[in-house]
């Protein structure tokens, strides 16, 4: 194991439990603001994982869009709701919780099973070639040549999002 691999392992060992704990805390805590703040920490852990996976651009997007913009959106709403204002929702369908736990456990078994069976063992195609000249530059090169069409359609998607937000959010009398 080279020293850089060792460093990667250390970072992973620090981040991985933190990610799991914050994710669990986010689901389990009764306070919505704590929940949101735990999610922010979780997003930063994910950004760390992306860095370890040599996807620096995705890491930056994770921080800017998710930890930044989307969390602002969440906190905006939560602060306005008032801290500790719990809404007790009566469950419409009985047995939903046990069923959800069972299904989640099933998914866990499936993923662990897939890991054990070596489904994810395959070597990544060629990270070095894909990241040639730097991660961001590599993404720029492929996004604006091969995926030009997908890029422009993403623009349409953003237009629809902006229009939809206004139509649902603002009503002209």
């Amino acid at each position, binding site marked *: 194991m080279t020293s850089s691999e060792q460093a990667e392992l250390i970072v992973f060992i620090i981040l991985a439990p933190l990610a799991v704990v914050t994710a669990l805390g986010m689901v389990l805590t009764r306070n919505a603001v704590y929940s949101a703040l735990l999610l922010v920490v979780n997003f930063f852990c994910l950004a760390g994982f992306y860095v370890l996976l040599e996807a620096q651009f995705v890491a930056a997007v994770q921080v800017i869009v998710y930890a930044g913009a989307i969390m602002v959106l969440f906190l905006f709403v939560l602060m306005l709701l008032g801290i500790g204002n719990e809404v007790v929702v009566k469950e419409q369908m009985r047995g939903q919780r046990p069923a959800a736990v069972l299904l989640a456990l099933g998914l866990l078994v499936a993923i662990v099973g*897939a890991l054990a*069976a070596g*489904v*994810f063992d*395959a070597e990544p*195609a060629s990270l070095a070639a894909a990241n040639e*000249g730097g991660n961001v*530059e590599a993404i720029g*090169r492929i996004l*604006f*040549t*091969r*995926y*030009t*069409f*997908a890029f422009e*359609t*993403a623009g*349409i*998607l953003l*237009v*629809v*999002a902006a*229009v*939809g937000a*206004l*139509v*649902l959010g603002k*009503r*002209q009398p």
Partner: protein
Amino acid sequence: MHPLAQATTQPLPLPEVDWRAIAPELALAVAGVVLLLVVAFWPRAGRGVLAGLTLAGLAAAAALTVWNWDLERVAFEGAVSLDGITRYARAVLLAVGALATLMVAQGDSREGEPDDSPPEVFPLLLFALLGMVLLAAASDLLVVFIALEILSLSLYVMAGETRRLAAQEAAMKYFLLGAFSSAFLLYGIALCYGATGSTNLLEIADATGDPTADGTLLLAGVGLLAVGFLFKVSAVPFHMWTPDVYQGTPTPVAAFMAAATKVAGFAVFLRVFAGALGGLVVSWRPVIAGAAVLTMLVGAALAVVQTDLKRMLAYSSISHAGYLLVGVAAAATVPAGVSASMFYLLTYAFMVMGAFMVVQYVSRLGPPDDDAIGERSSLEDYRGLARRHPWAAGLLAVFMLALTGIPPLSGFWAKYYVFLAGIEAGLTWLVVVAVISSVISAFFYLRVLVVAYLQEPVGDPGAETAPGRTPALGVALGLAGLLTVAIGLAPEALIAAARSAERILG
């Protein structure tokens, strides 16, 4: 200059921009943007003006589709492919869009009531159509995903266009479950990319033939893709949202959802499964066939117990998705499966649009709508319809009989060709289930006609409100009825056109 800086100014090999290949899509995008600006700068524009502009955009796109009819090529580095599926789906979707525009133009207001529907519904309709046409043409999983999101996002907003509680609830349900299913699809795309090293359908097709490729990972990806697509076409067991959404959504939007989403959803289903993943047919066919059996039987069985016409149409649309899945299951080995499915989509789109138009017509006759339930579409409202509104009842009969699959209406030929393809593919047992489901479905379609023709009307017919003056709905009803009868009388030309769709260009 720094040597590194010099190296990075080397020009990149640029992709070829094939404007002609995407001309209809461009027309739709331009029309959508123009309408958006019209709404922004002239908010008082009448619905008639907006509908006219929308129809003009659709006509331009249709003209460009005809201009491109003989084009067969892959454009934009494999992002879109022009083949039979693309052109057939374009034609059907644009026609459905025009009918939906007419329904939306009618609006949900009665005489003397302000219209609750915002003008944005027209540009959103165009963007939704753009997403659908792109979905049918996409030959790269990335474009598939973006197109699906464009159409879904537009439809979520359109579903909640009115302030009615039922519509808001429908939009919320559709959004939450739709976002959930998009996540499955995205995960599936990621796994397929991981297994084959590409998101391009042609390259995935090549990789599935390669025995050294990672089979398990690819199969996991294919399974997740199937979940995503099955949700969008509302197949069992991913159908739960359909009845609630169709019932709560304003009827024009529900009609558009029922017809157009199915066309686009099945077009991409055929392209991805029968086309790119055709090499793995042995692995996925049992899953799709199983989903088809469940979808046909559950849809038909639950439709029987409905007392609301919109809900019944939702369950009927589920069972029709089942018949189409038979076509998909057959399509991988039998080319006729592709053409039969495309032809089925064509006929189904007009039948179901027509049925929803009658619902829209009748719901405007009775007392005002209930905020929590949505537009009135209880079967009770159809009692004695034949005596009060013979034309509407007659058209209702045409659409119900066509949906049942009674010859010589279009629905019969649709089922006939799909069943034929199923038998040719050796799926006779599946076709037997489909026939059983058709028999069950005859019960609830014909019950609507019994109510409309044989039962006495309730209440005072004089209390009916006038159904508004715009001729849009009448024109749309006439067109849908005419098409359903005409396709039934002369299906040969259209099935021949569908046959040209059999070769899938990845």
